[in-house]
């Protein structure tokens, strides 16, 4: 299921056709209005409400013990899930783009599978496997190992939802680069690892970074899946998004929005980082295309 949305990273064609000036202005105005009202306003709302009771209250909320613990858990889940999915992404795209084998298309489809699964179901599947009444429930209980309602469960759920992101970035990019450089290196006597580190990796670094940014952003912000597998135990099994939910449901709005503001800030940084990497890859593609005709 490689349903894909290509992000607009193509080199923009010459545009701005001279449509009637009025129509143009109306359309631009309408678009800006929609974006401002619908996207920017909620963004602003987060920060305004976070600072409603002043900077002091904000800092207190952000440095609260439970909030810090939630931050730590969020970062931990991200720090485990993303690198593992990175390894998977590299392995899968290497196999898919440098070789031909039966079932290659099926593999590409399977990589996209987690995208088709709703967050709540993503958590449910791990409960069915590791939960008390799940496949391994009895065994885990006997050995006093807790996965569901504990940190490992959260990490697993995070791994599931961020599974496709890096592979999906690498596969089309490596496909377009072909395997000639790797073949040239092979004929020159380089071993597999040397080829990978010296030839392939430098060529894919921006795509790789983009995938890591997307995956990390999703890992930090995941809510539904983590909600199912977490025990919602404050200070122990709450990620930052879950912590926001708890605070909000207790009507502790300022604290909730303060925590939310951290996540929002991260989202904004993610958007900026994405733009920078897009710009860099555009430059890379343009440079190699321009030289093609020499």
């Amino acid at each position, binding site marked *: 299921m490689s349903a894909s949305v290509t992000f607009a990273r193509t080199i923009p064609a010459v545009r701005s056709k001279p449509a009637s000036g009025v129509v143009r202005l109306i359309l631009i105005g309408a678009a800006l209005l929609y974006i401002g009202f619908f996207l920017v306003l909620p963004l602003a709302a987060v920060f305004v409400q976070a600072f409603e009771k002043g900077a002091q209250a904000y800092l207190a909320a952000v440095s609260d013990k439970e909030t810090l613990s939630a931050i730590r858990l969020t970062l931990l889940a991200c720090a485990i899930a993303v690198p593992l999915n990175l390894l998977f992404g590299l392995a899968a795209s290497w196999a898919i783009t440098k070789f031909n084998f039966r079932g290659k298309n099926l593999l590409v489809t399977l990589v996209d599978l987690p995208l*088709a699964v709703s967050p709540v179901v993503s958590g449910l599947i791990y409960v*069915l496997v590791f939960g008390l009444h799940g496949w391994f429930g009895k065994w885990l209980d006997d050995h006093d190992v807790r996965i569901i309602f504990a940190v490992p469960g959260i990490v697993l759920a995070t791994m599931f939802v961020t599974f496709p992101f890096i592979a999906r970035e690498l596969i089309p990019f490596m496909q377009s680069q072909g395997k000639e450089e790797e073949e040239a290196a092979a004929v020159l006597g380089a071993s597999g690892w040397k080829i990978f580190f010296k030839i392939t990796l430098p060529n894919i670094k921006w795509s790789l970074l983009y995938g890591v940014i997307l995956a990390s952003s999703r890992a930090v912000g995941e809510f539904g899946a983590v909600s199912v597998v977490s025990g919602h135990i404050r200070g122990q099994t709450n990620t930052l998004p879950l912590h926001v939910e708890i605070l909000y449901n207790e009507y502790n709005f300022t604290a909730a929005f303060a925590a939310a503001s951290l996540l929002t800030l991260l989202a904004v940084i993610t958007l900026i980082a994405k733009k920078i990497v897009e710009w860099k890859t555009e430059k890379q593609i343009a440079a190699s295309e321009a030289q093609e005709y020499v």
Partner: protein
Amino acid sequence: MPSIFGKRSSSVPGFGLSLGFALTYLSLIVLIPLSAVFFKSASMGWAHFWDAATTPRVLASYRLTFGASLAAAGINAVAGLLVGWVLARYDFPGKRVVDAVVDLPFALPTAVAGIALTSLYVGNGWIGHFLQPHGIEVAFKPAGIVLALSFVGFPFVVRSVQPVLEDLDKGLEEAAASLGATPWQTFRRVIFPSVLPALLTGVALAFARALGEYGSVIFIAGNMPMRTEITSLLIISKLEQYDYAGATAIAVVMLVMSFLLLLGINLLQARIRKYQEVEF
């Protein structure tokens, strides 16, 4: 070296290791856990499964989720096309910023979006307090659900139509104009048909996302059974009551629906690719 994958090019090393690792990881993290859902529901027996998946409360949640997702997809079809159009064809100050902001719903954690939207549209919220005197209630009503789902699905449509609009052959429009078509006619007869497949794809993706959406919806919905309870929430409720069978049955229904939907999207995209190849 005989292999079930058939003969493969031996020019570059590392096939066995990379494929082996990839398949193992895929199976452990994705395939085996996913299969648990189907095994569990198989063990329930068909009758029990059907009962669990079609209680009135569950059916109400299907109607609500489906309907709200459809409505949101419809809104996004228009809004997404508008914004995609403006970004692809016009220049204006701050365009790069606007282009980046479009991805906000992708980057923003759903819970944050949920509480932000709720705070705006409740009775005493920034927008809510304008609407309330007129008797318009958004928060804790289906309308709020549609609102939240529109928020999360927005970038799908924009990012689907934007590249197509950018790559549109200017020659086609110029030909239409030279033949006497007004801008509107050109849009309706030349441009819109070209962008329609991409638009449908984007809408379908937004729809698929909306069906499973949880975090951004549960704050603004009322979460009242039979009225404002989405299917995802129902699954969690069942889990909290230790009704694993019930939760699984509903999950299977959701999975089958999204698989079918994505299959349709794939076929649509394949059709698009064929259509584009024939153009020359």
